[in-house]
């Protein structure tokens, strides 16, 4: 029988894969893709919990819709920043964007 735990484990695996991508990648676009993976893992977790435990209140579903909204806004804004970074510095390698690095 399919239980909540199985979905939670899949979502934990997806989140860990996204965390690896954020930590190991050097290109800003690839880091953004990994962040999308992590957002989707969170969404999967929210919807699984809402679908298994929450029969008449829709909190999990509605928060998942808001997460999708904020994710879309974040991608648009972050890609605009990446484009501007590329135009100013000629690279999307975040190791070379060290202006604000300590």
């Amino acid at each position, binding site marked *: 029988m399919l239980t909540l735990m199985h979905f939670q484990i*899949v979502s934990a695996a997806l989140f860990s894969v996204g965390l690896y991508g954020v930590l190991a990648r050097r290109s800003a676009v690839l880091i953004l893709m990994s962040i999308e993976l992590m957002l989707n893992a969170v969404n999967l977790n929210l919807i699984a919990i809402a679908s298994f435990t929450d029969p008449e209140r*829709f909190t999990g579903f509605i928060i998942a819709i808001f997460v999708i909204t904020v994710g879309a806004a974040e991608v*648009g*804004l972050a890609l605009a920043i990446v484009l501007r970074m590329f135009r100013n510095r000629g690279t999307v390698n975040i190791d070379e964007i060290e202006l604000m690095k300590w």
Partner: protein
Amino acid sequence: MTWFLFILLSVMVIGGGLGVVTTRNVVHACLFLLFSLLAVAGLYVVLLAEFLAVVQIFIYGGAIIIVLLFAIMLTRSEEYPSISDNSQWPLAVVAGLALFSLLTATFVVNSRSFEVMHRVALTDLGRNLFTDWALPFEIASIVLLLALIGSIVIAKVERRR
């Protein structure tokens, strides 16, 4: 049948995610991401959340992948293969595995037997969204508007006079 779909879609989700974080070709990474996100939409269908599956396909499959591909095309693509991974990737593997084992242990230890999935009627969801959650909904639309205007302002090319 549900088990089979769940296993298949989970393998697709995790496999697509691993493809995103391991491939050196950035366009392939984008297509792996699309694959993974569509499999997540399939998992939403298994969870009886069909509306969110449709939203997932529209927004991620339709909008976000296109925007990512545009950004890849507008930035120089020759440097991507040489800058895919940094030198800290073994540390990142350790961090990912540690987080995964921690979360999995927590979920297994604290698993309660929720076995019944509830189907949410779309009309109830919409009524709830526009009554109890009306204010957050409007704030979310303002956030989207501001993000779009902000990204236009940031990405705009200034013309020298």
